[in-house]
């Protein structure tokens, strides 16, 4: 039986991997996958805490986060498609029209 700390460390490591991915990757879809990784690492934390504290609130929160992540995916992929239609790329380096 693993202690709650192991789950929390795993979750923190996954969160940091996701964060580094967002900051270093150039493809919008890969960046979005990294964001999903961050959200799922948060879910892991919530479930570990919920089990450890014997309290259901965390697990309910996870269901909401999953639903929201699905909605975000729908909107985000749609935005990427409309960007791709105009520019034929989804590289974030090419998002360069707006700057000072």
């Amino acid at each position: 039986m693993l202690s709650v700390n192991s789950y929390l460390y795993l979750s923190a490591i996954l969160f940091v991997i996701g964060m580094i991915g967002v900051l270093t990757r150039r493809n919008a879809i890969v960046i979005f996958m990294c964001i999903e990784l961050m959200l799922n690492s948060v879910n892991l934390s919530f479930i570990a805490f919920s089990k450890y504290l014997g309290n259901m609130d965390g697990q309910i929160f996870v269901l909401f986060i999953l639903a929201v992540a699905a909605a975000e995916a729908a909107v985000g992929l749609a935005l990427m498609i409309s960007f791709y239609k105009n520019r034929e790329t989804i590289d974030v380096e090419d998002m360069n029209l707006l700057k000072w």
Partner: protein
Amino acid sequence: MENIVIPAINLAVIAPEVILSLFALALLLINVFVKSESKAYLGYLSIGGIIVSLFSAVSGWGCPAEAFSGTVVQDNFAIFFKVVFLISAAMSILITDKYLERENCNHGEIYPLILFSTVGMMFMASGTDMMTIFLGLELLSVSLYVLAGFNRNSIKSNESGLKYFLLGSFSTGFLVYGMALTYGATGTTKLAKIASYVAQTGMNSSNLLLLVGMLMMATGFAFKIAAAPFHMWTPDVYEGAPTPVTAFMSVGPKAAGFAAFLRVFIVALPALKPEWTWLLWGLAVLTMTVGNITALYQQNIKRMLAYSSIAHAGYVLVGFTAGNAVGTAGILFYMLSYAFMNIGAFAIIILVGKKGEENNNVSDYAGFGYKHPMLGVAMCIFLFSLAGIPPAAGFIGKFYLFSGAIQAGYIWLAVIGVLNSAASVYYYLRVMVFMYFKDPTEEFSWVKLTPAFALCLIIAVAGVMIPGVLPGVFLELAQKALFM
């Protein structure tokens, strides 16, 4: 494991949100089934929905109540903010139709999307549980991602939507991680219970879970209110988004971010007040300075107003740092008057643009004040108010924010705020110099004032001047709305 108890349902408390959601859903259907070239009728229907929701919200003034086992409350604080959101949504809708027609992007879905994001803001202001605040924030954000990229054929709008989406969901990750850690430290997601648990066990900043949770939540909220160093998305997204959406985005989400930020920090985390006060002090100084200095160099007026909105978030953070009744009432007063002056200024920006050419450079305003004297005067009123020159509402708001900081003993913070405010006069006055002291290069013959625009401008001018001349009434309302 505890048993799950079905909570008492008290729909009256969330009636304004329910009404607005029903209107938004109905408008989506009407938009599909009614074949019509003009989509203006959808705008008027949504304004009808906003007025009904406004009455339903205001009727709860002074009768605090809670619903869904304390996850949503109806208190004066929430109602005050709901009024700000509804007013800014209605004013943005008034200026939407003509812009979309001009840009060949006349899709009726924009109105339901604005209503949905308003519902999200209302839940952020009335939520007293981290779950409701998170859901409100996401409803607001997901609708706004679509709104920012609404003009599908414009490359700039695409880019704006995608940038907002990537950075917005990145910051959401921080916010929920902060919520998870706070939940882990205290075992509950309800704000009031977090506070009582922390007080009972005598937890303080030496509890690493709680401290990191607080920092992560602050990051998430700072992103939403566009505070430096989390402001990088703001100018890009504001410039690329359709101008009515920019007007809405610069007011509503910022006010909603502040509402949730205030409630989470003041209700749930009073034990960490020494830590978060210093954090906010730093954020306020950095935000004001970065916003104002960068705004000095902007040639594009939408970008200039974006940096100015960053600076205004900094002024409001000054009131938040003060943390006393004067400063917090100042925040509420300031958000109300900021809604009027900013949307008014964006309405004029839409009028000056024409098809294909947005005319967003400051030099495009040369001679505008002579060609359209009334619009010129209105623009001057908005800019004077943004710069904080009396008797406009912006001055009174800043006065309360800074005097709150002085009362709380943050003299240097107030001094930095006043200096920043003085520097900001330069870039607001520059627009006026172009409007009145440069020879016109354009005829401005395309500028046509429609009744909807005129109404929006009249509301905006009244909203800037009346609280500026009679601040007592509005400040009393703001003070009654405090939950401290």
